[in-house]
């Protein structure tokens, strides 16, 4: 014992300090919020009584809304990167991280992965097809974060390699691609023959849906993550420069812009000539769609990054803290609907008066938009 004490006493204090420093560095890189790895936050889609989403463990899931049971799930796997570091002897394949909200087109569910691949899964046969959008150059950081959108027999998706892709809905073959100046994290919007897409290069682009040629572009002062909404010939979107913009859909000219205190991250919703824009300052701004004047602001008390959803005349918004609010568009009253007790980054979806919310703990909730009654669906 005395020998141990003697040896310990001989160890220089610098040794312990350095060991402490290393432990601190490693721990601060590993603890939640300290250099965490990508985990995903797939949003939810509802179609014909089925909820579709990408789970946190890399599966595409279909849940029956009537009885809340899992209808089917298809695991998406990718080869392990080899990792290195301290995770020696890891698995050969790992689940695909999913940020995108799936989209349905008849029997097919389309979803994109953080591995740069777009998947098409048959809801009836569970057969899947995939295409690597980085197939020309695998070294490109082509993670797909925004979701796909289907229109006119094409699937459109933006990638972190800065390209907008238009693919065949059947074969997933590339029809055209358009290069922006930086990453694309948003989901494109398609109205008529125009594709609207935002980019980290601070611009929004209007592209010809047929051949991908550019119609117009508009530059803001910040990167753009928010997906655009087109309503009544106006394009609405927010930017990281803290402004919310309204542009003429025809030529991209500025109608008005509105300043808030933090980033506009999520896709807005419009209802009866009012735009509801969620800001990361913890507020929802109701802005007159014509003039750009603020009508009212709703204080959520915490930031919300998930896009709001419209249920009848109510705007339902979920904060990052997992609190569900109902904002009445007529009376402008704010109601606390439910508390999920879990973090939420993913955008919800609504159907038949119910809101479906996917939490960061990989739980799926159904919340009644009127009463706030909630039930948890099993997605294991």
């Amino acid at each position, binding site marked *: 014992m005395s020998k141990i004490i003697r040896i310990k006493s*001989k160890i220089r204090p610098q040794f312990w*300090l350095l060991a402490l420093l290393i432990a601190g560095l490693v721990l*601060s890189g590993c603890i939640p919020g*300290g250099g*965490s790895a*990508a985990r995903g936050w797939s949003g939810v889609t509802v179609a014909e009584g089925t909820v579709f989403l990408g789970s946190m463990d890399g599966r595409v899931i279909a849940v029956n809304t009537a009885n809340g049971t899992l209808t089917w799930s298809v695991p998406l796997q990718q080869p392990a990167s080899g*990792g*290195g570091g301290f995770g020696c002897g890891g698995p050969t394949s790992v689940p695909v991280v999913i940020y995108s909200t799936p989209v349905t087109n008849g029997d097919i569910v389309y979803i994109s992965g953080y591995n740069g691949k777009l998947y098409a899964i048959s809801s009836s046969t569970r057969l899947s097809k995939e295409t690597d959008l980085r197939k020309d150059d695998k070294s490109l950081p082509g993670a797909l974060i925004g979701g796909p959108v289907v229109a006119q027999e094409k699937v459109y998706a933006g990638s972190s390699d800065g390209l907008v892709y238009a693919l065949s809905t059947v074969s997933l073959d590339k029809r055209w691609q358009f290069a922006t100046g930086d990453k694309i994290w948003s989901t494109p919007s398609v109205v008529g023959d125009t594709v609207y897409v935002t980019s980290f290069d601070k611009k929004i682009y209007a592209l010809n849906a047929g051949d991908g040629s550019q119609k117009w572009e508009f530059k803001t002062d910040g990167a753009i993550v928010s997906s655009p909404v087109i309503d009544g010939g106006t394009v609405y979107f927010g930017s*990281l420069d803290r402004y919310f913009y309204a542009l003429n859909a025809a030529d991209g000219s500025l109608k008005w812009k509105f300043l808030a205190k933090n980033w506009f991250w999520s896709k807005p919703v419009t209802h009866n000539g009012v735009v509801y824009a969620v800001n990361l300052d913890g507020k929802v701004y109701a802005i007159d769609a014509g003039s750009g004047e603020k009508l009212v602001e709703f204080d959520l008390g915490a930031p919300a990054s998930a896009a709001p959803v419209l249920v009848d005349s109510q705007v339902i918004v979920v904060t990052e803290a997992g609190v569900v609010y109902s904002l009445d568009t007529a009376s402008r009253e704010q109601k606390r609907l439910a508390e999920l007790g879990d973090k939420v980054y993913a955008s919800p979806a609504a159907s038949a008066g119910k809101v479906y919310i996917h939490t960061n703990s990989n739980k799926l909730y159904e919340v009644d938009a009127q009463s706030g009654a909630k039930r948890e669906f099993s997605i294991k």
Partner: protein
Amino acid sequence: MSIGGLWDLIILNPMVNVLIILSNYLFDNFGLTIIVLTILVNLVTYPLTLKQLKASKAMQDVQGKVAELRKKYAKDRQRLAQEQMKLFKESGVSPAGCVLPMLIQMPVWIVLYQSIIRVMAAAPEEFLNLSQRLYTNWPVVFTQLPLAHRFLWLDLAVPDMIMAILTGASMWVQQKMTAPPTTDPQQRAQSEMMQWMMPIMFGLLGLTFPSGLSLYWVTSTTIRIIMQYFATGWGGLTFPKLGGMGSKDKEIKGRIVRQKKPLTAADTSADIVIKPESAKGEGTEDGKSGDKRQDGGGSYPKGSRPIRRQPGGGRGNRRQRG
């Protein structure tokens, strides 16, 4: 508010915002920003670093004497502690002098590391969370993000093999410079373990963490090496002499020669003589250390000779033979 929340509010968030603002003035170049901020933080903490380096050097210089005391009073721990304290006092060495400045600087280095990893925000979650750290009255921090990740050949958000090697190599040099000369086999083993453990560990971390962090580690270590050189010399780092023998070779040759013939006074001219432990006259008459030299070797009694600097050993490089 929790300690973590307080740390974020008072220390981490200001550093994050400063980092982003600085990148705005440095041509939107995040790599350059990491280098400049690391230099600035080093300049601010320079007095503490200098204090620590000098205290460590002084501590190293008395290690030989401490080893002798340990041998002498191996069975009397109380006496050993007394004698050690006496030695430290006479030599003007304070054990806390090495540790305290390091302790004060540690939060600074941790916050610099944390702020770099936060601002780099490789994963979408990290980037989203960054919004809550930004100062609303500094509009530029909102528009400045995300910061450009390209610097030289590097994507600062992903690991890089060359930077990992540079991290390990620079840390090895620094460890070598700080390694204390010792005759105690246990301490020598421990010292050698330190020399290799740190570089290997940080090299491995460099293979796993974004190369922006490796850039910070390499910059920081390089600055420390420069500071250390000017404060205490090359220390334990020796260079092989081109076209001739290195200091280590000379030492080995010296040993061989001495094995062949009895040691004479002339032989000691190329080597080091350790002062007898019973030597009197250390320091000044008032009992305080009169040593003002860089190597801190103290005054020498008659019959012994001062240490001769090793060729190529640089300033403050001293070896002792037990």
